[in-house]
């Protein structure tokens, strides 16, 4: 049963990765210009040199040909050569990937460790003035764009010595509050739905204590939506971290990616997109496995 479930999820994941990498190649090709567009404007470079470079970078070959060649080497961990740095893409990406992972994992951990207890607490006191205050606060926080938050914190960092620009605490302080309100609202709603289930009421009729009711009935019932939410929050955080990294100066994938897009550094862009997709796919696979173990009903289908 588990084997079939896993196999199906793996095939889904492979198809997803293929379409993401193919799509990124196609979109990059459709974008006007290539790495040599700017070099052509330089009068000091002769047409012969440019033609030689064009050949050496493999830009003369057709897109499908390049894609298949890239795919073949990507399976062996080789993501091509960066045009701008003249270095293997994997060497450039790995350290950046590590710092992005560090940032997202820390922010994720912080956001969840605040949102989970607070969401459950608010759900248990639904309708109380504190719950309403929390809802109001989250709406407020939700309406602040990450960039505004980042800029605000940059000003604080510049004026005081509390946060170092380019440091981890500053980046986490932007990312965690940005994902917090959405998490909090979803957790609260998920737990509320679960606590309204008929079998939770039935347990009350047996004289169960409130604490046991929450841990034995409500939280397991809510775990399904919470695990799915976890998978989604990883995706959301990863995409918003790319932007935030650029603003707060965190040396992650974000700045590298932005630079590569501007310079049409083809294989770096493709590599970053592909690795991010891999990261997400693995996250989703883990979430699916957790769901599989957490909910006996999924095992039936």
């Amino acid at each position, binding site marked *: 049963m588990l084997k079939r479930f896993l196999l199906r999820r793996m095939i889904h994941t492979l198809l997803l990765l293929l379409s993401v990498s193919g799509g990124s190649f196609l979109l990059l090709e459709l974008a006007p210009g290539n790495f040599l567009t700017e070099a052509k404007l330089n009068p000091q470079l002769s047409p012969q040199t440019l033609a030689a470079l064009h050949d050496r970078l493999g830009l003369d070959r057709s897109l499908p040909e390049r894609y298949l060649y890239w795919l073949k080497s990507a399976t062996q961990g080789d993501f091509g050569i960066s045009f701008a740095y003249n270095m293997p893409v994997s060497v450039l990406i790995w350290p950046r990937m590590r710092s992005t992972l560090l940032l997202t994992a820390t922010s994720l951990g912080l956001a969840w460790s605040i949102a989970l207890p607070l969401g459950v607490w608010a759900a248990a006191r639904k309708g109380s003035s504190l719950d309403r205050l929390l809802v109001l606060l989250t709406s407020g926080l939700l309406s602040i764009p990450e960039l505004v938050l980042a800029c605000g914190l940059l000003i604080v960092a510049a004026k005081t010595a509390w946060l170092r620009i380019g440091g981890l605490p500053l980046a986490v302080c932007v990312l965690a509050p940005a994902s917090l309100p959405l998490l909090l609202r979803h957790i609260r709603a998920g737990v509320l739905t679960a606590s309204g289930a008929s*079998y939770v*009421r*039935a347990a009350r*009729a047996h*004289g*169960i*204590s409130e604490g*046991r009711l929450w841990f034995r009935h409500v939280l397991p*019932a809510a775990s399904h939506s919470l695990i799915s939410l976890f998978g989604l929050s990883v995706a959301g955080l990863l995409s918003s971290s790319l932007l935030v990294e650029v603003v707060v100066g965190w040396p992650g994938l974000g700045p590298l990616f932005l630079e590569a897009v501007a310079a049409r550094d083809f294989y770096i862009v493709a590599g970053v997109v592909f690795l991010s997709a891999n990261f997400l796919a693995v996250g989703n696979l883990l979430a699916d496995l957790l769901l599989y173990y957490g909910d006996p009903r999924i095992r*039936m289908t």
Partner: protein
Amino acid sequence: MTIRSGTLLEARNVSKTFTRGRWYSDCGVRALDNVTLSIQSSSTLALVGSSGSGKSTLARCIAQLEKPDLGEIWFDGRSLANFTQAGFRHLRKEIQIVPQDPSASLNPRWTAAEIVSEPLRVQRWGNEKKRYVRSLELLESVGLDNRAPHQRPYQLSGGQRARLALARALALEPRLLILDESLSSLDLSLQAQIINLLIDLQATYELAYLVIAHDMTLVASMTDQVVELCKGRIVRQEFFPC
């Protein structure tokens, strides 16, 4: 006023109003209005009435899932309002309710045996092994076959789930069992089977039933008393001497 001997439950002038909306738009719904009734031990009271007449609210007040605004409910000579928290938990054992939709009231993650032994665990009855043995007995007593204990609710049929919910309600050996239209989702032959089962159980456990039903035909064979509610008020009360 003293409670007559043999009276298990008595509701006196019970009223309950649900407030809908906010402080600025006060539109309450009077679900129960001055309801007075009593149930003798090991007898059956049928509560009938159209939708929204307050039947379920009354059942929930008696099962202590809601608190009435006005009036008192007495159980076995004691007013429910006077119970301490611990006494309340003990009292839960005596009054059990089989909810409107038995299927939804079963935790989908648990097996039938776990579902039935949960009330026992909550009331700290016996140890794990004794509870398991007891749950098997209970499942057998409601006529579930020997495969059922290890199956989860979604693997059981509708009739089996209704029996499972009944077994769970019986686990604590209550003295009053409330059936809140628990049978209306079943087909006729199954309803008849379960009603026969209820009659048998009444004889063995000296159970009193509060049966909520849309139509009387279903429960006519087993009732001693019929109370009809309309918009929260009692409009008809009949006794059937048996």
